[in-house]
């Protein structure tokens, strides 16, 4: 799951980060240059692939790491 999420993050920022770099990240993804635009692409990619809807009304800090995303998906 984390591997696939890292690939989606990498695709969303046009390969500016490799999946390996995403997985190794020790700071929030936004500090690595994942822009809001890339984050919006990532939201679309995750919603398509996992058939979920991401609610942006509440706490959205889980979007900022692969671990956070994986936990969020696991809790669905």
């Amino acid at each position, binding site marked *: 799951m984390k591997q696939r999420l890292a690939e989606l993050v990498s695709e969303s920022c046009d390969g500016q980060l490799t999946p390996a770099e995403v997985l190794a990240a020790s700071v*929030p993804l936004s500090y690595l*240059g994942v*822009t*809001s*635009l890339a984050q*919006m*692409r990532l939201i*679309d990619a995750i919603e*398509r692939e996992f058939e979920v809807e991401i609610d942006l009304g509440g706490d*959205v800090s889980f979007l900022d790491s692969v671990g956070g995303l994986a936990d969020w998906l696991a809790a669905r």
Partner: protein
Amino acid sequence: MTATGTIGTIAFAGERSGDAPLTWGQRAIWEAIERTAPDDHYFNFGRVVRLGARPASVDGARWALARLVERHESLRTLVVDGRQRVRTCGELPVAVGDDPDVLLAELTAPAFDYAREWPLRVGLVTSGADVTHIVMVFCHLAADGLGAEEAVRDLRLLLLRGEPRGSRPPQPMDIAHWQQARDGRRVAAEAAAHWDREHRRIPQTMFDVPSGAGERPPIWRASLRSPAIDLAAQRLAVKHGTSTSNVLLTAVTAMVARTTGHETVAMLPIVSNRFRADTRGAVSTMSQEGLFTLDVRADVGKVRFGELLGLARPAALRAYRSAYHDPADRTRVLDEVARDRGMPVHPYCCFNDMRFADHAVYRDDVLIRRALAETSLTWPMSQEQLNCRFCVHLSGTMDVSVTADTRWLSRREMEEFLRGLEDLLVEAALR
């Protein structure tokens, strides 16, 4: 100097014709055009494609332009009776001149005849037998800035290797059908809920005190050329783990709070709406306004800019999502809110980041301070009509302009706004 003429037409023959409702993006521009007429040439914009070391022949340029119009249905779409009509075949007039800037200005100046004229005007700049530049002017119904970039990229590939990129691009007619179907309606409903919720709590409008200093004509643009803003925004973006776009949106919001005294600020950022896999790469007009709201509270000067950035990030994501909405829903929701609050509610306060790149580097103090000496302010435009009171545009590295209705914000206040924006960003960056 002008030597503009015409050299016939380009014949094109695409794959299909059709008739569909306008897409949400087309509808948003169409409504803006109707409100702005007869000054609707305001929305025309163009690109000059320099061919540089690889000039084309006139026939080669004509061939590439024909393939471009065949590939992207938006470039052969008319708006008739409020619907999009895609035509298969036609002929596109070609202008010719010897100065790309003159050609661009001439092709951009007249408003489009939306029901009868192709939404793309082209011109060739020649030197002997060579075409050195291709000028393309877009009707805003056919493309927005990013859509035009897609068209330029395809044109370059057609000239260079005789074919565009591999995959078939998304077409506005298909996007319109998706938007009308179940999935599109679900996305629209979520966006409409955001517009509804926020309009029930924001101020009636942002610039609500007459300035007492209206000019004739009333609409003016002040433009600040400030490399220091660019450098400071980059440093803040790296420092706080965000994009320069978010930094600048937040800073403009803080300045609107400072200028107007409103503690809840509503801005309408123009959002690209190219996040989704089914819209990326489209030569179309996808951009729409989103609704960004931020509670700035208390005196902005005392709130740490970093804290404000932290609040702005999730607010920006919600705003970006709300931008992909059906304008008909927005109208309905705003009517309901107006009825319930007993007054129309509209921010009349928009933000358009037209830069294509957002790469931030941590800039050092000396560089930022030194750049302050390069700041200059100009007044490039004035006009009669604008369906807004306050519009901020960002371009390059960096020009920040305020186009405002002087009846609500005087020219002196416009200048103070821009200078204050620079101060806020530079101070926050160097803190």
